């Protein structure tokens, strides 16, 4: 905690002024937006923190909430406006002024939170919450007993369970480490955070194990006999039923029956479930079910199926006729069937959308409005080209009253109807240097090459040679002047790819000597002796998996296996802050396009939104069922997209922390995400070698690009969005015609309403080129401001 303070103080030059202004903006505007939903997720976070840390950090966390988080909530108004750290997260508990208990679901959640607070001996906070939420005094007691009595009230039970979980965790860790076995890597951070035993107890009610085979094959026969149009839809049932039946068998110690069951029916499952099936097949003992993540994922989240009403009626009638209660129970308890009216979907339609760990997304999940438009660009007059020198002379005042306006400037005059309010989330004000950079950007963009299917970009490949340590992450600054690599040996290396060398700022003693009034003071503060092409940043204690430059090129973020995210100054080449919170490997991090905020995601299945001057996260986005593998900011900075090992992509609202989109369809962990420059579309790449294109506004999959033969690690749209470049482990860069892919869209109302997409297989038409590297996996792609494509990777002989 003190770390951040120390870090900031040690570098007054870099953080000083911006810190104050940005910070106050944020805090003054932050508060009004907190609402009920926000409170909800904050408590989810609390649950996560309580339940997920390992033994060592448990103590830290325990001591934290009273001082920072919940303690603040008593005096929230005053504290929030003050500059106390952590106010953003902590104060929200009582920040909502809605006394209404809300729908029953929310009430249950509130009860759960109440329970947690009580367990954590936070009586005061609990009382406040109870009062604010308008819950009766005795709200907790009957519910609590209800939950402990097992049965259907899982959501309510979760609250109670959390408390148990936190305490039991410690003992479990010690036991497991002595047994040389796996400790609980985490208790799942699902929507309703249940304890393993509670989850599994649901499996205890069961019929005759020997009949499982008959049940399943009976259903199989039925589904195979129905009309073709229904068969494809009902076939979706196979996989979740299979898994749950298998797990029931295992849980009830019918190992041999389970094994036989598995062997008989595992071949029927769709090939894209192979990975999960392999994990499942290794699980043959009840004891092993504890702490198995995949199992918990399955149990905690209802597998979502979309089935037309006709098909569903058919299934229901069949099961009722046959008195097949076993299967009916599973469907009732573990499956969520999203019934829609209309034509049943075809096999290809279903296949396109399925493949995720927990089935498809519910339709409601993608109904929220997303403001995907771009923010208005700040009005900066672009100096005429022939006055370049003049502009340089008057560096201080780039705002000149000139009649000439850049085309972009005039375009951004009109507010995009789909854009969020300019002030929806507070953004840092532009500094003079930022304005200069914007001017540079506009100038460069006038020289930009217009790309298209008949005019492909040139590709320049930056090869990391002698990278024996293992290159794990690459990033390039927006102006393409610096390139940074994160390495498995915990170092971060920054290279200058222009002739301009990297220089440190002089030491404090030397800084006192320079003439602060001189015009070239910015030049004078730099220490020429330190000029070099490469700077190495030491600090992490594990491989650096994610790396991101700030838009103003003053900072660099790195996320590492050691569970921390570090902020580095590119002026002093020292570490400024270490952000702790994930506690597990952090797979990715990225700066907001406007700076100041950044997002991170990791093994703990949550993504966090941070501000550089807060050592606590501002938002925690929880909901993924497996590791978050990649994180991206929307160009308007109001949304964050996360890709996960659960094979889904989620879009989160930065303002309220809600999940506003869930995209399913990938058949493997997602490792690359890219927003189109207009903010309307999202491209994602996964280990299955496919790139999927998504329409954010409608929440639909709009394209599939097949061609890569290995994991896609990088995706990037050209500056004007005409070309999508994808880089992969298969040592190729491929260019796709994004214009065509998005132009061909048929977004009629029906498709938009039902979410049923018809994808034509036109990957070959959209593929504009495949470019081999010399056994160099492509880890990063970047379009320069003039649309030259830069690719980077380490030579891997």
């Amino acid at each position, binding site marked *: 905690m003190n770390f951040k303070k120390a870090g900031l103080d040690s570098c007054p030059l870099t953080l000083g002024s911006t810190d104050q202004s940005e910070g106050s903006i944020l805090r003054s505007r932050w508060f009004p937006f907190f609402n009920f939903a926000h409170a909800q997720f904050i408590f989810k976070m609390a649950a996560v923190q309580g339940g997920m840390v390992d033994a060592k950090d448990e103590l830290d966390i325990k001591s934290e909430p009273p001082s920072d988080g919940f303690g603040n909530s008593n005096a929230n108004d005053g504290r929030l406006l003050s500059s106390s750290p952590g106010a953003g997260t902590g104060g929200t508990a009582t920040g909502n002024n809605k006394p209404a208990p809300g729908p029953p679901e929310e009430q249950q959640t509130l009860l759960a939170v109440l329970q947690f607070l009580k367990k954590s001996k936070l009586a005061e906070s609990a009382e406040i919450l109870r009062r604010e939420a308008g819950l009766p005094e005795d709200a907790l007691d009957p519910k609590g007993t209800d939950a402990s009595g097992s049965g259907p009230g899982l959501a309510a039970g979760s609250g109670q369970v959390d408390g148990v979980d936190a305490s039991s965790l410690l003992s479990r860790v010690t036991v497991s480490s002595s047994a040389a076995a796996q400790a609980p890597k985490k208790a799942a951070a699902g929507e309703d955070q249940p304890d393993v035993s509670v989850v599994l107890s649901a499996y205890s009610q069961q019929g005759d194990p020997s009949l499982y085979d008959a049940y399943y094959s009976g259903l199989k026969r039925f589904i195979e006999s129905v009309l073709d149009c229904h068969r494809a839809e009902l076939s979706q049932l196979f996989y979740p039923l299979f898994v749950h039946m298998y797990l029931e068998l295992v849980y009830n110690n019918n190992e041999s029956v389970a094994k036989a069951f598995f062997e008989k029916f595992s071949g029927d499952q769709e090939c894209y479930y192979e990975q999960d099936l392999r994990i499942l097949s290794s699980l043959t003992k009840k004891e092993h079910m504890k702490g198995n993540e995949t199992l918990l994922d399955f149990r905690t989240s209802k597998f979502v199926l979309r089935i037309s009403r006709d098909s569903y009626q058919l299934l229901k009638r069949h099961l009722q006729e046959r008195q097949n209660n076993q299967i009916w129970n599973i469907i009732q308890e573990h499956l969520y069937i999203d019934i829609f009216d209309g034509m049943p979907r075809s096999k290809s339609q279903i296949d396109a959308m399925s493949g995720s760990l927990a089935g498809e997304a519910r339709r409601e999940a993608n109904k929220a409005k997303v403001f995907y438009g771009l923010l208005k660009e700040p009005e900066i007059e672009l100096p005429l080209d022939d006055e370049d020198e003049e502009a340089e002379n008057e560096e201080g005042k780039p705002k000149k009253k000139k009649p000439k306006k850049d085309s972009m400037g005039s375009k951004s005059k009109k507010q995009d109807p789909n854009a969020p309010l300019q002030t929806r989330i507070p953004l840092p004000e532009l500094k003079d240097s930022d304005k200069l950079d914007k001017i540079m950007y506009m100038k460069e963009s006038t020289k930009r090459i217009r790309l298209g299917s008949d005019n492909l970009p040139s590709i*320049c490949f930056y090869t990391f040679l002698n990278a024996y340590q293992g290159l794990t992450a690459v990033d390039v600054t927006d102006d393409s002047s610096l390139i940074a690599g994160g390495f498995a040996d915990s170092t971060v290396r920054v290279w200058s790819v222009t002739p301009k060398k990297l220089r440190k700022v002089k030491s404090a003693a030397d800084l006192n000597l320079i003439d602060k009034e001189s015009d070239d003071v910015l030049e004078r503060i730099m220490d020429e002796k330190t000029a070099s092409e490469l700077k190495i940043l030491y600090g992490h204690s594990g491989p650096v998996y994610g790396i991101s430059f700030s838009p103003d090129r003053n900072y660099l973020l790195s996320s590492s296996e050691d569970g921390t995210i570090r902020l580095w100054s590119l002026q002093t080449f020292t570490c400024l802050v270490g952000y702790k919170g994930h506690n597990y490997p952090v797979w990715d991090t990225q700066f907001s396009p406007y700076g100041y905020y950044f997002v991170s995601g990791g093994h703990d299945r949550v993504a966090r939104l941070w501000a550089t001057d807060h050592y606590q996260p501002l938002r925690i986005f929880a909901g993924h069922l497996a590791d978050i593998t990649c994180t991206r900011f929307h160009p308007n900075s109001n949304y964050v997209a996360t890709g996960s090992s659960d094979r889904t992509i989620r879009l989160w609202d930065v303002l309220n922390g809600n999940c506003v989109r869930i995209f399913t369809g990938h058949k493997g962990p997602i490792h690359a995400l890219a927003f189109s420059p207009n903010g309307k579309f999202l491209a994602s790449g996964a280990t299955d070698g496919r790139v999927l294109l998504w329409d954010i506004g409608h929440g639909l999959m709009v394209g599939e690009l097949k061609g890569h033969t290995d994991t896609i690690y990088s995706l990037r749209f050209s500056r004007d969005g005409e070309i999508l470049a994808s880089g992969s482990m298969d040592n190729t860069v491929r260019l796709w015609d994004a214009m065509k892919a998005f132009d061909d869209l048929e977004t009629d109302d029906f498709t938009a309403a039902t979410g049923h997409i018809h994808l034509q297989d036109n990957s070959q038409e959209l593929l504009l080129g495949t470019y081999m590297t010399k056994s160099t996996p492509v880890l990063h792609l970047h379009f320069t401001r003039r649309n030259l494509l830069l690719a980077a990777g380490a030579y891997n002989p």
Partner: protein
Amino acid sequence: LSGSVTMAADREERRFAEVSRDSVKLMAESAGLELGDEVAALLAEDVCYRLREAAQSSAQFMRHAKRKKLTVDDFNKALRWSNVEAICGYGAQDAMLFRSVKEGELFFVEDRDINLIELALATNIPKGCAETMVRGMFTLLSSVVAPCSVPAAVQSLSDDLLKYYQQITRAILGEDPHLMKVKSVSHDLEQLNRLLHMVKSLVQNPYLYLGSYVRSLVSSVMYCILEPLAASINPLNDHWTLRDYAALLLSHIFWTHGDLVSGLYRQILLSLQKVLSDPVRPLCSHYGAVVGLHALGWKAVERVLFPHLPAYWANLQAVLDDYSVSNAQVKADGHKVYGAILVAVERLLKMKALSLPQPAEGCSSSQPGCLAGPMGYRVSSPGLSPPPEPLAEAGLGIASHLQAGGAGCQWEEWSPVPLPAMYSELYSFFGDSLAVRFSTEQSFGGFSPCTPSHFRETRKEPLGHVSNPDTTRKMPQLTANLNISPRQDGSPRTDPPPPSLAATGSVRSLARSSMQRSRASSSRSGQRSIGLSRDVFPKARFTSPHSGPPTFSFVIGGRQMGRRCQGRRPFQTIFVPTPPPPVVLPRVYTHKLPVIGRVCKPLRRWTRSHYSLHLPL
């Protein structure tokens, strides 16, 4: 985990490797514990499961490290996050040896002892590995050019070269995509010229490996040489220069990159030959073919142009002899071709003659055997006096000879024609203009110029014509070519003997051997011509009793109008004495020749200026 592990082989077929009960027992024993079978079995199963779990989570670390190879490090990380101690000692990159012990069915990883003392005191300290660095390199260059507008000639280029090409063409031809095709710019000589310069710079770019794309380049250049360009219609356009330049470029490509494509030479020659033998093609194409051949060197001329000449001659003659007004333009073109052929054959003769002494020079160390076959021919053939051929019949006779000998496209049937035969044949076409042009050469090239050993040539050139090769001749001239067998001491030559001459003995033996061969060849080539010979000068005047046949050829050149010679053959006479068959070693005497007209002093013998590629056109 780090101990020996026996793999269960006899267990039922499963999807996973398993740790057997026995292994667990063994492990327990090594830890000083006694385990029951049941416990061991349960433990084994659990160990398997935990191992699989760890393997799965370690795969995640591998994926995020963007590798395809799972390392021990990944596994250790997975263990660490499961609160299990990491395993040590397996971090090395090299593969671990997995050994088996037969009697015990025991498998283990070999773990060699390392002598730390040796390691510490080792003097050969390994060098640090090279520094990590970033290097930029273009994978793809592209331009605004649409792929469809790429000329067919270069469509077979690889993608990036294609882009490179497009980039260059764009730079040269400007932005208009319609100019991209060579054909579409064939009306614009400027563009074509620039294109050719581009090709040249491509070829000269040492960083560009053209590989098999040389072929495409060559075909582009060939297009410029051979095609009847749209620009050629206008007589004011100087497409000739373009063709000349393209031909030079072709030879440049060939000499620098010819080794990259097998059979390129042959292909070029064949296509040139095709053009040449196609009478339908316009004269400018023929011109291109001739200059192309010429640029490829005298051998190409010898192989293609020379055999074709008789057939082609008839066409050309027809064009040249048509004095009608409508034919004026064509006729002018015809003269161009004529001039080009003339230059080509001149060089052919010159180089051919020049090549003669080379082997002799090389073999001066008395090794007759080293004379290669074709060289032997060349060496020997001038030794014979070529049969003088009457002008009237020469065309016919040689034409028939050539038809038999390989005038067609049959490449393989080609055999070198002896120099004198060639000369006389060529002479039959060109008449004195051939000789005259010889005489006007700066170099002493004419006809076997620098013969260090076997043959000498005295050459009389009209004074005053040495320095201005392009002047039109008005005066009749006499050129005498005298081939004299080497004889150092007895030679009455005014010139000093060549310094490179070796001992006489060796020369003699060499000469003898060559004579033997030449006899054979003379009997072949002489069959037809002996009867036709027309002796003008008594041979006795030039042959000494015991000498072999010195070869004299007198050429009296008449009015020569340079390139545009209207009187191609105003008058010409050749006097070549037929020598008796050689009996002994040829002896050489040089005589002052009676000369009609002026006689110039023989030029310096060893001048090498005939190597110059410059050929006045």
